[in-house]
Each structure stands twice: as structure tokens, then as C-alpha cells.
């Protein structure tokens, strides 16, 4: 059983000016500040998520939609355990596999074959686990003999294929994705869809942040609509999109 439970989770990013990270400025501010005024050391906070309560359990396929800056990525990162909530509680059970940065851990000077191991290890797998999967990874990537050439000789599409096939080679219990992984040519997207569908069917929970109605409707039966860090609506995908689209129309 996998689940993620969020209780009253808020995320506040402190906004540091670049100058505040200089020691000189800190000393001057502290020194002069104490002499000249009693102004409190004000740090600006950007409120990325507000009081989110959410329960994801087995079988949930959740889409996350919202305009830019609505908190989609932040919510994904909280679910992935990368960001700690400023307030509130989060409880996980199950192995989490976040796929956000398609090129993470890849070294473009090394060959494709070496990069399969590098990226696999960044995802937390052991060498022998990667070896058992290596043939299927190479086969899916369609790279053939290119796999033994350095990655910087690849086209962008080839890089994407390589990292996509590594990322989806291992079964995950909780799968978190943003849509950047679904960029590629039409041929690849079709292939990737089939792969993703089988990949997703093996995982217990999926959360996918996207701007594309098509993609979300394709993979997710429930959807969260975020607006300025608040959940506007959480329900069946069709209903949420209905409200979301009419909201977008009133904004025009």
C-alpha cells in the first residue's frame, strides 16, 4: 500500500536579495541597523502553497493543473520529499520516483552506455539492478550503435530518448512527473505513451503536472486545480477542467 497524506501543508520561500548573502552587507546592516533604527530584519516570504490538505492513495492518477506560478512544481516537490513543508505534516509510504529533470546526473562527455549507469545510480539503484535492465533500456532508446558514442554527439531527441528509457525502466510505487518528459517527436511520443501506460499501470500512485488538457485527460482520472498556492478544486478530471476552462474564459 502506498499513500501520501498532506495535512495543512504550507510552503513559504524566503526571498533573499543577492546582497543579503554577502558578509559585508550583513555586518553593515546589523551594525548600522542597530545604531540607526529599530527596523526589524525583514525577510520577504513568497507564499507558494497555502494550507494544502490532500490524501493520495493506491490507484490514484492525479493531474495537477494551473497557470504559471500557481504552485504546481512546488506541490510536486513537496510530494517528492524534496521540499520540506514550512508548516503542516506530510506522511509517505512507498518508494517515490520523481522524474523532473530529464538530464539529471548525465555526463555529456561520457558514452550513452556509461550514462545509463550514472543516471540509474542517481535514481538510487544499485549497479546489479541496472545491469538486469540494461538490454531493455538500450532497446527502447532506439540508439543502436550510438549507445557507445559520447552523449554530446547526440541530438536533443536522442538524449531525451535515452534518459526517458532509463527513467521508466524501473518499477516505481509512487511516480511523480512534470510534462517536460513528454516532449519529443510524434513518433517518440506515441511510443512513450505506450511505455508510460504500462509503467503507470505498475505504479500505485501517479501525480503529473501539466498544462496540456490532452495529456492530463489521457493519464489522470482525478485532477487538482491550483491557483496562487490554493487548491481551487480537486475532483474528477472532466469536472475540474470544465470549471478551469470557464475560469480562464472569465479572466480574458
Amino acid at each position: 500500500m502506498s499513500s501520501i497524506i498532506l495535512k495543512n501543508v504550507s510552503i513559504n520561500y524566503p526571498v533573499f536579495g543577492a546582497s543579503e548573502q554577502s558578509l559585508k552587507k550583513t555586518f553593515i546592516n546589523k551594525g548600522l541597523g542597530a545604531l540607526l533604527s529599530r527596523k526589524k530584519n525583514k525577510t520577504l516570504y513568497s507564499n507558494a502553497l497555502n494550507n494544502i490538505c490532500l490524501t493520495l492513495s493506491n490507484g490514484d492518477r492525479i493531474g495537477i493543473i494551473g497557470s504559471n506560478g500557481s504552485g504546481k512544481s512546488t506541490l510536486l516537490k513537496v510530494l517528492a520529499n524534496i521540499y520540506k513543508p514550512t508548516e503542516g505534516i506530510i506522511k509517505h509510504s512507498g518508494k517515490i520516483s520523481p522524474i523532473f529533470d530529464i538530464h539529471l546526473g548525465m555526463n555529456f562527455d561520457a558514452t550513452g552506455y556509461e550514462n545509463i549507469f550514472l543516471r540509474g545510480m542517481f535514481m538510487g539503484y544499485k549497479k546489479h539492478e541496472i545491469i538486469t535492465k540494461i538490454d531493455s533500456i538500450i532497446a527502447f532508446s532506439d540508439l543502436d550503435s550510438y549507445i557507445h558514442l559520447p552523449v554530446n554527439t547526440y541530438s536533443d531527441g536522442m538524449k531525451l530518448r535515452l534518459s526517458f528509457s532509463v527513467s521508466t525502466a524501473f518499477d516505481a510505487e509512487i511516480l511523480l512527473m512534470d510534462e517536460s518528459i513528454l516532449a519529443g517527436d510524434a513518433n517518440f511520443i506515441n511510443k512513450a505513451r505506450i511505455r508510460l501506460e504500462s509503467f503507470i499501470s505498475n505504479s500505485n500512485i501517479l501525480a503529473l503536472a501539466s498544462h496540456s488538457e490532452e495529456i492530463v485527460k489521457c493519464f489522470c482520472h482525478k485532477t487538482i486545480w491550483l491557483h496562487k498556492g490554493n487548491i481551487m478544486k480537486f475532483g474528477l478530471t472532466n469536472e475540474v477542467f470544465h470549471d478551469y476552462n470557464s475560469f480562464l474564459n472569465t479572466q480574458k
Partner: protein
Amino acid sequence: MNASKQHSVAITEILISFIRNRGLIYQMTKREVIGRYRGSMLGIAWSFFNPLIMLAVYTVVFSVVFNAKWGVGSNSKTEFALVLFIGMIVHSVLAESMNNSPTLMLRNVSYIKKVVFPLEVLPWVVMGSILFHTFISLVVWGLFYVVVNQTVQWTIVFLPLVFIPLILFSLGVSWMIASLGVYIRDIGQMTSVLTTILLFLSPIFYPASRLPEPYQTIIYLNPLTFVIEQSRDVLMWGHMPNWSGLIIAFSVSVITMWLGFIWFQKTRKGFADVV
């Protein structure tokens, strides 16, 4: 897995984390070492030529130009360069990890923001790469010594014991600086000055015994002093290591390492906010 769990600061966690991530550390170290020379024609052979050339330069400059003598009454033309080189090798272990650490987290922002990554392994990777180069330098030193003296001191086998405190100490410093460097960007400027000062305040270009009496105690407060002198004892002069001194050095290093680790684990929560 539970997100509200704090990062462990237990001293055993240092070892557990190392064992858990050993495959990752090995791969990243390899990438770091090979990556440095990739694209160059001689490739990894540069790691051998660099110390070789430096040792040759030291020999010419200090022994021929300056006519420097290490011990009184020594006539050897090469002795000064060999003694000096040991000091440089020891100094570079600490200095390189100090200079590498301030930007360690900033160079790897995606490890902080894009995945759940065991950030505490990064200083191990830096240390792995340093130790590789240190090993090559020691081989070069050894070859030079054999060519000049036609013999090897058997006490060379104790060198790893002398280096362990140095490595643990450097790791602790590395954890400390890596975390500080995220919050205070000035640290990078400070470490390069500090390591240069350290180069001249350690008995690298001169024996500690040449200092006037009151300064002798002060120079032993420098953690490098003991390691440099011990390394010379076992490599050069064929003396046994100072066992009680080693135990003290080991204890001090373990405490430093642990403090650095605690500091890192306590402060890493804020990294994602700042980078």
C-alpha cells in the same frame, strides 16, 4: 519513508551513509577524475606528469638556484626537493578540499532541487578525487626517491595510518565549508587566502625545529604540522610513527569530522531556499 524525519547526525550515520552510497561515490569520483582530463591528448597521464614536472622544478629552484639545505651538514642536491614535496602533498589534501567545498552545493543545484539526493556524499567524492591525485604524487615521489637513494624506507607502510587523521579532518572541514558556502558566498574568497596562508605557516619550506622556541608550540597548533612531520618520518627518515601523537591526531580528527557532519546535516534543510 517519512518526511518529517530529521537528517541523522549520529557519528555512525557517516559510516552508514558511506556504505549505502559506495557505488554512487565510486561512479562520481571516476567521473570527476576522468572528466578533468577528457579531451586532452595525454588524458589521465597528465595526473602523472603534473607532479613529475613540479618535483623537477622544485629540485632545480631550491637545490640549484637557492642552494637550500634541509638538515645541517647535508650535501644532497635532491634532499630539499623531496622533503618539500612531502609537505606540498599533505598540504594539498586539506587545501584542495577547502577550495573545492564552498561551491560544492552551488555547482550541483539540480541535486538539491530536482531529486532526493544524499548530498552528504559530495565531500566524499571530492576527497576521492583528491586522494587519487595524492596517490599518483606519492608514486612520483617514491620513484624519485628510489632513483636518488637506491633504497626505500620500510616504514613507508605506516603512511596510510598517518594520512587517516588528515583525511577525516579534511572531510569534516569540507562538510562545514560546503554548507557555509551556500549561505555565505564570501567563503570561497576566504578559503583561497586561508589555504595560501596555511602553506607558509606549515613547516613545508622549513623544518619546524628551525623556528624560535615560543613559536614552536604555536606551529604545532596547526593540524598540518604533525601530519607533515610524521609523513617525513616514515617516508624519508625511516623513523617509526609517533603512536601516542597519532592517537591524539585521530581523536581530534574524528571530533572535527563529526562536528562538520552535524553542522551539515542540521543546515541542509535550508539549501533549497537559498540556491
